């Protein structure tokens, strides 16, 4: 291959980190677009929100936005350097997505109480489904991570 000289060895760590950031950002965007806007299950703002929660929500929102953009730039960079390890990248994407879903379900909904999944009498099934989805995504991510390590092992 003509580009072989420029080709860096596959970089599973950076591939995973880049896609993981995208996973976090995409989950946050889906939350904002689907659950806040399309379904209108989540409230834009609960008037019971404390000042601390409002402040941390703003910081978190800003971090999500910057993380999403940084993830795309990192992934484009790793690809341009031909160092993309795709199984590791998918593992990172699912771990990022699931981890954020779980974080949102526990910290935002339960600890900070910014808003709830849906405003109904029996919230428990919604919370279980929300956090269960997060755990499922995480599980997929860890299975892919094991596979990525197994793929690399024989070559080393």
């Amino acid at each position, binding site marked *: 291959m003509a580009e072989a000289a420029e080709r*860096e060895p596959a*970089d599973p*760590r*950076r591939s995973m*980190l880049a896609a993981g950031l995208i996973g976090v950002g995409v989950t946050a965007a889906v939350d904002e677009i689907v659950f806040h806007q399309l379904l209108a299950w989540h409230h*834009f*703002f609960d*008037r019971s*929100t404390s000042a601390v929660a*409002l*402040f941390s*929500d*703003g*910081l978190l*929102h*800003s*971090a999500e*936005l*910057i993380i*999403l*953009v*940084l993830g795309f*730039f*990192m992934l484009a*960079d*790793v690809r341009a*350097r031909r*160092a993309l390890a795709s199984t590791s990248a998918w593992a990172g994407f699912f771990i990022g997505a699931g981890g954020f879903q779980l974080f949102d379900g526990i910290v935002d909904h339960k600890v900070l109480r910014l808003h709830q999944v849906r405003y109904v009498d029996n919230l428990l099934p919604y919370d279980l489904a929300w956090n269960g989805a997060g755990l499922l995504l995480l599980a997929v991510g860890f299975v892919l991570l094991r596979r990525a390590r197994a793929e690399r092992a024989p070559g080393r």
Partner: protein
Amino acid sequence: MDHGGHAGLAASSAALVLLLVVLPSLGLAAYLFGAGREQRAQGWSPWRTAAFAAGVGLICAAMLPPVAPWAHGDLRGHMAQHLLLGMFAPIGLALGAPGTLLLRQVPVATARAITAPLATPPLRILIHPITAALLDIGGMYVLYLTPLYALSQDNGAVHVLLHVHFVLSGYLFTWSIAGPDPAPHRPGMRLRLAVLFLATAAHAMLGKIMYGYGYPRGVAASRAEVEAAAQWMYYGGDLAELLLAAAFFALWFRRRAGLPEFIAGRATATG
């Protein structure tokens, strides 16, 4: 609103058309002239020209029908105007690198005379990203959470200054964070990223405060209109800040200098 207020607003409309339609259009004409010359001399990216033209186009669109009359009586219209003037247009203007184009067009001595003031303490403080963010986002807090917005509806001069401030502070902020135009003594990328992060958070918080507690006050707008305007500000701001973050990272990944190792990789430290 009394009769005098209407007359005042008519005069302010004329001033706004002059300042935010005629002047930017003249600026664009000068830019196109310069870009054409530069294109023949040492080359000038058509993307820069397109970005600058888009920026001017958005300013004019905000100040002409249908947006301008809509903004006159509707808070959502005002918010659309505010987003165009203060957030989207400045991204186009800054990415157009008008400063670089100007400096290449003039003799070296003139270029030095133009850039020298930027290195003096007052201007260095003014163009610092933290000052720029305070003027831009901080200015919005003052505008929407104090009676200033209601005042701008009645007072022609305040009305004009407000709209000019949107464009100038928006441009200053965008330039200080992600502008390709050089600036002397500009702080490093990490500090600029931190300012971008805090400014984006502050903008989102302001949107939620306005929605939750019904700001701006003292205007003839229903609560539903205020809530809709606040959400427009929040999501419109997100989109603009997404673009700004993309411009920022594009600049940083192109230079690579100072990119943390976990982002850029070890092999790139030499290149």
